[in-house]
C-alpha cells in the first residue's frame, strides 16, 4: 500500500508541476520556493487531500507553513487526523 507521502508526491508530479523539470520530487523539497505549485495548483492539491482523507481542510490551515513540502503536508495531515479522532 502506498504511504500518504508517496500518494501526495505522485499527485504533485503527475498533475501539478508547472515547470518542465525532469528531476524527481523529494519529500523535503520546497514546493513553493521552487515555484512547483501555482495558486490553482494549491487549490487542486487541497481538493485531492480532502478526497484522500475524506475530511475538510479549513481555510485557515491552508498556509505556507503547512504546505511547504511533502513532509510538512504529511505532518499536518497526521495532526489533523489525530484531532479528528479526539473529536476536536
Amino acid at each position, binding site marked *: 500500500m502506498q504511504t500518504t507521502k508517496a500518494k501526495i508526491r505522485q499527485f504533485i508530479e503527475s498533475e501539478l508541476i*508547472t515547470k518542465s523539470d525532469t528531476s524527481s520530487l523529494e519529500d523535503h523539497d520546497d514546493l513553493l520556493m521552487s515555484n512547483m505549485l501555482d495558486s490553482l495548483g494549491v*487549490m487542486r492539491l487541497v481538493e485531492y487531500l480532502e478526497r484522500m482523507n475524506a475530511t475538510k481542510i479549513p*481555510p485557515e490551515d491552508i498556509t505556507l507553513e503547512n504546505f511547504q513540502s511533502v513532509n510538512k503536508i504529511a505532518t499536518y495531515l497526521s495532526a489533523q487526523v489525530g484531532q479528528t479522532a479526539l473529536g476536536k
Partner: protein
Amino acid sequence: MKYLLTHAIEETADRLTEQTAFRFEKDSISYGEFALNVRRLANFLVEQGVAKGDRVGIFRRKGIPSALAVYGIMAAGAAYVPLDPMMPLERLRAIVEDCGIRDLVSENSQVKTLSDLVQDTPLRTLVGLEGESAASLDGASWSQVIDSPDHMPKVCVMEQDLAYIMYTSGSTGQPKGLAHTHYSGLSYATMAAETYGVTNTDKIANHSSLHFDMSTFDYFSGPLGGATTIIISEQCTKFPANMSRLIEDEGITIWYSVPWALIQLLQFGALEKRNLGSLRWVMFGGEPFPSKHLRDLMQALPGARFSNVYGPAEVNQCTYYHLTEPPAIDDDVPIGKIWANADGMVVDERDQLTPSGEVGELLVRTPTMMRGYWARPDLNQKVFHRSLGPGGLEQIYLRTGDLVREDSNGSYVFVGRKDRQVKIRGYRVELDEIEAALCSLEGVMEAAVVSVFDGQATNHVKAAVTLKPGVYLEQADMLAHAKQKIPSYAIPEQIAVVKDFPRTTSGKIDRRELRTIL
C-alpha cells in the same frame, strides 16, 4: 521638475527620508537608504558598461532588491525588462535576444537557468549572485554594488526615453515587448496616485509580479505619493490565509490585484478570523470580476471602497469604475468612463464611430500609452490608429482590441475581444500562441485551443490535437513540450487527441463546437 520615474524616488527621499519605502517579509528600507542604493546600483551598472537606452533584465523573485533593480536600472539611463522567474528557458532566451539584454539583476536560485542561458547568449553583467553556489558564473554580489559611489550618475535622459519593456503573449508564438517611456510611466503613476489619493499614510500591497503591468501602481504610484509598498512574496500569493494575515499585520490600506486573487481571499482567506479594517481601497482589474463574488467580497469588507480598473498594459489604465454599492448578482460591472487627461472613442469595423449604446472597439488616446512594441513595426502599424485632428495634425489612438458598449450612465461595459486573446487568472494569453506551440511538436498535425469559463472564478485552457498518420503521442509528452515554450499559466489543463475536429461548412475548425465537447 519631475519628468522621470526616478525623480519620484529622489523627491520623496528628500521629503520623507526616514519613511519606509518598501517592506518585504521582515525587511524594510527607508526612502533615504533606498535612494542611496538606487544611485549605487546605477553607478555600478554604468561602470560595467551599461549605457543610455540599454535594456537590463530583472530575473529574480520579488523582494527589496527587485525594487532597487527597477529604479537602479532606470537611474543608469537604461530600461528595465522584468522577466518571469518561472519562465521556460526557451522563452527567456527569446526575450533576451529580442531586446538585446546583456545585463541582468538576478539571484542564486536562478543559477541553473543562467548557466544554460550563458551557453549561447553572451551576457556581460549578472548582479545579485553570491558565494559558492554561483561560483560557476561570473557574477557580482550586492556587496560589490554597495561599494559603488552614491552620487547620481551623469546620464542625459529625457521623458521620451525608454523606462521599461514588459513582455506579453504574442499570437504567433513570439512574445512581444511593450516599450514604455518615463513619460508614459510617470503619467500613469501620477494619474493613478491622484485618482486613489495615495499619500504617505498608505500601505500598498504589491500582489502582482514585476512582469505584470499592474505592478507599476505599486512600484511607481506608491513612491510618488510617499507611501510604503509591501511586497508580497510569490509563495505567499498562493495562500489566501497568509495574504489575509499579512493585510491585517501590515495594516494594508490599498490592495490592487486581479479578481482571481480576491476571489481566493474571499473563499479561503479565513476572513471571519481577521480584521481587515485598514483597507480603504480595493482595486481590481485585468479581467471581469464575477459579480456574485464581488458582491460577497464587498459585504465582507464593508469599510473599503471598490474600484474596477481597466486598461490594456499598452496604456496601463484608461478607465475606472468606483462601485458605490455591491452589484446585483447578474449585472456586469462596468469598466467606467475614460479618466481625466485621456480620450476615447468606440468604432466599428470600418473605424467609424458607433452610435451610443452599440458595441464597438474601444480606442484610446492617452499620455500613459506605450511608445510601441519593441522592434515590431508590423504590429505597431496595426495597433495605433492615426487620425487627423484640428489643423490636420495627427492624433494617435491605441486600438485596445476590446469590444465595449456604453450603458445608460455613460459608462463603458466590456463585452469581449476582437481577437482570440483571453485572460487566465488575469494573465494575457493568446490562444493562437498555444496552438502554434502544440503544432511545433513533431507528429502533431493540427491543434485547436479554447478557453472555457468554469462558471465560478476563472477561465481554463483546453486543447485538442490531431496527429499525423501512424503517430502516437501521450498527453504527458505534449504537455512537457508545451512547458518548454509557453508560461505555466497558459499550459492547457487537458490536451485531447481527436480523430478530427468539428468543422464549419467551410472546413475551418469549429472552436465553439469544440468547446462543448472538451
